[in-house]
């Protein structure tokens, strides 16, 4: 966390030296100061930040890939005639997540393959997820669990 703050401070300093606060300058400064901090934490033995950032990037790549696959699937369904849906609303257990984790999970579920969170139970332990292709109940739950697992291991550690 300290290293992350240091990274932001260095990026802002980079912006000051260029005299502009545009997104591109800030992004360049962020990347450069990240490389600098990586060098720094290799010299002094402060671990954790680099691997965490790498996990975040890996999750982002996975997410973009899933987003594209989902959209091409829906596009195929729309363009070809006939409707091959088997929709369901399923229960999905999310016991033991903090509110922020639940928010990120809802956003990710709403953006990935044919799924949509319809409601959350009053005790906030169950999502009710509407799925487009859910002829196999257990496989649907397994897919959602995979996404939850990835979020827990790669984003929130």
């Amino acid at each position, binding site marked *: 966390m300290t290293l992350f703050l240091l990274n932001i401070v260095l990026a802002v300093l980079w912006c000051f030296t260029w005299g502009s606060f545009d*997104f591109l*300058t800030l992004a360049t400064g962020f990347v450069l100061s990240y490389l600098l901090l990586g060098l720094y934490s290799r010299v002094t033995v402060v671990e954790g930040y680099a691997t965490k950032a790498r996990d975040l990037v890996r999750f982002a790549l996975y997410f973009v890939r899933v987003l594209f696959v989902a959209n091409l699937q829906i596009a195929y369904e729309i363009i070809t005639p006939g409707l091959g849906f088997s929709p369901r609303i399923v229960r999905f257990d999310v016991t033991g997540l903090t509110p922020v984790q639940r928010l990120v999970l809802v956003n990710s579920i*709403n953006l990935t393959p044919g799924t949509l969170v319809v409601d959350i139970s009053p005790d906030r332990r169950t999502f009710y997820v509407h799925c487009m292709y859910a002829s196999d109940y257990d496989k649907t739950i397994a897919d959602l669990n995979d996404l939850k697992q990835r979020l827990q291991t790669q984003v929130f550690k």
Partner: protein
Amino acid sequence: MNHVVLLNILTTLALIVGLFFLLVGALGVLRFPDVYLRMIAASKCVTLGISGMLLAGVFHFIVIGTTAEADAVTGSSAMAATTKAVLVILFQFAAGPVGTHMLARAAHIDRVRMYKKTLSDDLREDLLE
């Protein structure tokens, strides 16, 4: 000169992808049989489509900046274009799913009829208990 050609080709590709997904999202809203399926089509395809269009805009303004035809009066700068495009994309990815979720919840509370091939509805079962 060479990278201008590359950037123009990238602009065209991003435009084609964005337009394809925008059109597909609109057709899905028209074609799909019930509210929830329409919501899925609308929220996902259209978000991706608008991201493609904004990327095309960013590429195009980088080209304008390098060919030195930028006029200071209208403020055609690649930096400003990038900043605004990134803001719109971030907002779409953060707020689009929230709006869709609220609308789906409202529709279910109002008992909108579901597609006739729907297999099961766990939420309705739990509410009836």
